[in-house]
């Protein structure tokens, strides 16, 4: 239903904008009250749901293969209505399920990153928390294999400076994963005198760039961990984001076709059941039209 008083402009463009960013379609049409209402309500509900679940509740299913993760399809179908974040999740799913996204034991270029974790040295027979920076670079290992070597420089829990060599076995978590921290484990070595000797172990994490963890699909372990961490709030976050997506479908339809019942200045009695009322009105009109004919026959 469209009323000439409602400026729909280019309805299809408005609907597309309303899908991409809730409220944007109505803003384009100059329907500012509705733009604000839809934006605040739908974004508010969606973002609050996301924040409840540490921004990990939108998980797009894989587009090809990996049937075991297709269970998230129904949830994602409802969340899809919210537009841009759901589309980003779909893009992240494509990146996440690529063959090349796996734990890294070789580097193409040197990597420096802040590190927090635990250092275990055999010589001290202790393990302690350390913070600092890791400097990693590609290197040639035994038998010509490509490996990662580097060093860690930082401080321990007491503030004492620590610097160790890393090598032989260094592994980094996959580049893209639904965790803002990327794990790093490495063997601590001493290569003085040309002979490599293992001294201990360093394990912890380096930060992952925002676009490498935001709305990336969870693996089974991360999913279980999120359930354990959130309990019933996991369901609440799911419901909030799903309802936000479904409500935006109404907003998209409003941008495309205008409000379902009319402008709003119709009599209040038509508020609840406009179709029935309209039918009744039509019937009365028809009967009044037919009345003279019936009278003429009698």
């Amino acid at each position, binding site marked *: 239903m469209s009323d000439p008083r409602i400026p729909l402009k280019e309805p299809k463009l408005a609907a597309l904008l309303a899908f991409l960013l809730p409220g944007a379609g109505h803003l384009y049409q100059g329907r500012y009250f509705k733009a604000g209402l839809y934006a605040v309500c739908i974004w508010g509900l969606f973002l609050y749901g996301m924040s409840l679940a540490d921004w990990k509740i939108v998980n797009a299913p894989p587009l090809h293969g990996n049937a075991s993760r297709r269970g998230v399809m129904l949830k994602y179908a409802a969340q899809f209505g919210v537009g841009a974040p759901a589309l980003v999740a779909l893009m992240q799913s494509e990146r996440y399920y690529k063959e090349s996204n796996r734990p890294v034991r070789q580097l193409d270029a040197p990597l420096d990153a802040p590190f927090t974790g635990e250092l275990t040295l055999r010589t001290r027979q202790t393990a302690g928390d350390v913070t600092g920076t890791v400097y990693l670079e590609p290197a040639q290992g035994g038998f010509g294999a490509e490996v990662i070597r580097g060093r860690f420089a930082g401080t321990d829990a007491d503030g004492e400076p620590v610097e160790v060599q890393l090598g032989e076995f260094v592994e980094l978590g996959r580049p893209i994963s639904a965790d803002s921290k990327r794990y790093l484990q490495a063997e601590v070595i001493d290569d003085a005198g040309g002979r490599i000797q293992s001294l201990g172990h360093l394990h912890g994490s380096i930060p992952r760039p925002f676009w490498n963890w935001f709305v990336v699909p969870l693996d089974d372990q991360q999913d279980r961990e999120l359930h354990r961490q959130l309990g019933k709030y996991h369901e*609440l976050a799911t419901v909030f984001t799903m309802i936000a997506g479904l*409500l935006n479908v109404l907003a998209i339809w409003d941008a495309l076709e205008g409000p379902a019942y009319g402008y709003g200045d119709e009599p209040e009695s038509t508020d609840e059941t406009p179709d029935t009322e309209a039918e009744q009105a039509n019937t009365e009109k028809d009967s009044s039209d037919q009345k003279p004919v019936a009278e003429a026959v009698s």
Partner: protein
Amino acid sequence: MDALPTLLAHTNMTWYLLPLAAVISLVYSASRYEQTERILRRAGKLFAQIILFMGAILALLAMLSYRL
């Protein structure tokens, strides 16, 4: 529970119904009419209906589970 905003971390889940019902009422009513005043009035009415209905269900369940 670190992920939850501090103020709402220990809130009874039932209270989440209020903002949820408010949002549903507003968006649904806005998709029915154009006039601001009509939208708000209808949203208020719908909100009250949802809360009353849920309240009635809550009361019924509480009654059924009495001394269980």
